[in-house]
């Protein structure tokens, strides 16, 4: 019983960054812009959050700075791909690389370290507190509601309708007087902010920034978007599933059931299976990645 509760808490704790980043991914991709940038947005969010918390001594200042960082790189991706019609995949590769370089460069500049920042004010007790300390982090609650909220925005609001329109049939949306680029700008910048929140959560939960601390979580979130077939609730369930597998792996560590490398592969293999259409076809938004002439 105690083990199950611990397992559930651990799953939740691991899932929160995925939920934030995947919600950003769903939003941008539903608007037709490829979200390979989630990893970079998260890392930028984590670093800016640490800077903010370090200089202002307050984790909420960190959250604010993290959001700003996410918006900034979201805007960069948006300008490159929407205004300049750069290839969305190339832009994403460049931004991910740039963020890794920038965080390392400024880690040296600000903290004179090549691996981690000093400890900063964060959420929850510092150090390895008990499982119930999970709930001392207010971002948990935001993470829990982010997918249902996004589902509501996408299916029930005017903005959501327009996001879906510009992602599926931009020409038709334009004919109806919707500014395709304006909707896409908003969606991509918001996706930067959402993914950055995932990074804020990581940094403020661990009370510091470490080099490449997102460690591929942005790509796991992208996997959840695809496995969840671009629908918020399903993507959220995929996030929880991936997190559960990781939590299980931590629980049975040392028992030698399955090598950790195989557990870490689960999200990626599931994505490949979903792409191949073996368990229901994963059909992306029609205009995803397309460059309008």
């Amino acid at each position, binding site marked *: 019983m105690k083990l199950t509760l611990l397992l559930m808490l651990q799953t939740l704790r691991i899932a929160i960054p995925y939920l934030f980043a995947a919600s950003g991914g769903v939003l941008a991709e539903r608007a037709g812009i490829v979200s*390979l940038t989630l990893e970079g947005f998260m890392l930028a969010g984590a670093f800016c959050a640490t800077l903010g918390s370090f200089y202002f001594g307050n984790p909420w200042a960190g959250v604010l700075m993290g959001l700003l960082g996410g918006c900034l790189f979201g805007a960069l991706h948006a300008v490159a791909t929407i205004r*300049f019609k750069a290839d969305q995949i190339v832009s994403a590769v460049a931004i991910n690389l740039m963020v890794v370089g920038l965080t390392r460069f400024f880690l040296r500049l600000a903290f004179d370290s090549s691996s981690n920042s000093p400890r900063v004010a964060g959420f929850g007790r510092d150090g390895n507190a008990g499982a119930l300390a999970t709930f001392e982090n207010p971002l948990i609650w935001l993470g829990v509601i982010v997918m249902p909220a996004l589902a509501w925005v996408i299916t029930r609001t005017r903005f959501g309708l327009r996001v879906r329109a510009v992602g599926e049939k931009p020409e038709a949306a334009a004919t109806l007087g919707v500014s395709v680029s304006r909707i896409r700008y908003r969606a991509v910048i918001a996706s930067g902010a959402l993914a950055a929140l995932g990074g804020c959560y990581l940094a403020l939960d661990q009370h510091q920034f470490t080099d490449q601390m997102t460690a591929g979580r942005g790509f796991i979130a992208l996997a959840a978007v695809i496995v969840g077939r671009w629908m918020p609730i399903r993507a959220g369930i995929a996030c929880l599933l991936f997190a559960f597998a990781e939590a299980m792996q931590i629980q049975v560590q040392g028992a030698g059931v399955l090598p950790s490398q195989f557990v870490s592969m689960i999200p990626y293999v599931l994505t*490949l299976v979903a792409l191949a259409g073996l368990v229901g076809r994963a059909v992306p938004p029609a205009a995803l990645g397309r460059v309008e002439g």
Partner: protein
Amino acid sequence: MRAATSAAIEDGVLPTLTALLVALVAGDLLILSYGQAPGEVWRLMMSGTWGNAYGIGQVLYKATTLVFTGLSVAIGLRAGLFNIGAESQLAAGGFCAAALGLLLPTGMTPWLAIPMCLLAAMLGGALVGFIPGVLRARFGAHEVIATIMLNFVVLALLNWAISATGLAVPETLHTPPVASSSIPRLAAFFPVFHGSAANGTILLALMAVTVSAWLLFRSRFGYELRATGLQPLAAESAGIRVPRIWMMAMVLGGAVAGLGGSNFVLGYKNYFEDGFNGGAGFLGIAVALVGRNNPFGVLLAALFFATLSQGGLAIHALVPKQMVEVLEGIVILAVAVSVPEVRRLLRARPAPSATTLPVTV
């Protein structure tokens, strides 16, 4: 005719020049933010790379791997496919070369052992390229997502193979040395390169450039591949089996990237080490992009990016070497942004009057 050529040159050169300019300015700002003099740092970067034989050797070594991964990405892009998987194809190639090398008897003549290991490297990379190729050709799965996901799977598998199966030397993440098939270092022929990692794989890279250029632009297969990349529907109507071309392009790209693994495994360390790929596969995307998917352009771009990454080490005393990672990202983004922009500007320019062109009816 002349107008068309100059437009083609402008289209090829302008984006790169723009990118270099943007990167230079951004680099200046980063250097200034660190309280150093830009001129001094750039000078140090040049003298640490092209200023001495060791630096040149290191640049050549790094460029060699980038030529292979750059060609791999370029071949895919010519077929209209974005291969983000060069990283794991490179790693798999290196692993297979080392694995076969360890199986071969130690007394075997290198004239036989080296080609066999090179073949193993190509097969390893080709296998990793084959999976997204099949997923694309048979199931219509987008190759970008497939190759990204496969990167994680393959790299985790290799990590498991090296750390959990007793293949590695204890306390390390590398295999024992492969005695039978080591490609000689450049220093064995030119003593000035002493200490640098540059090795005979350079010749292999030059061959790969030439063969790819011939294959892409002079062979029937290359014609079909480029036709597929330019306009798959038109290619299909012309009788080209498009899914087959997609599959072949991915397999070929994987094989080329896999062959690149031999630079580290057979030429430099003589063993496979977990993580030896170190981002060279991802940088291959930048190399292909800046080289405009032309094999000779890839060669130049590989030299450029190798200079940057070696230059990062040279300036590390003054400015963190991570500066070059930022510059790499900026160059990629600037090229990506300015290619469509330059094309638009060229198109907007009044066309050369048509009457001067020879008209044959």
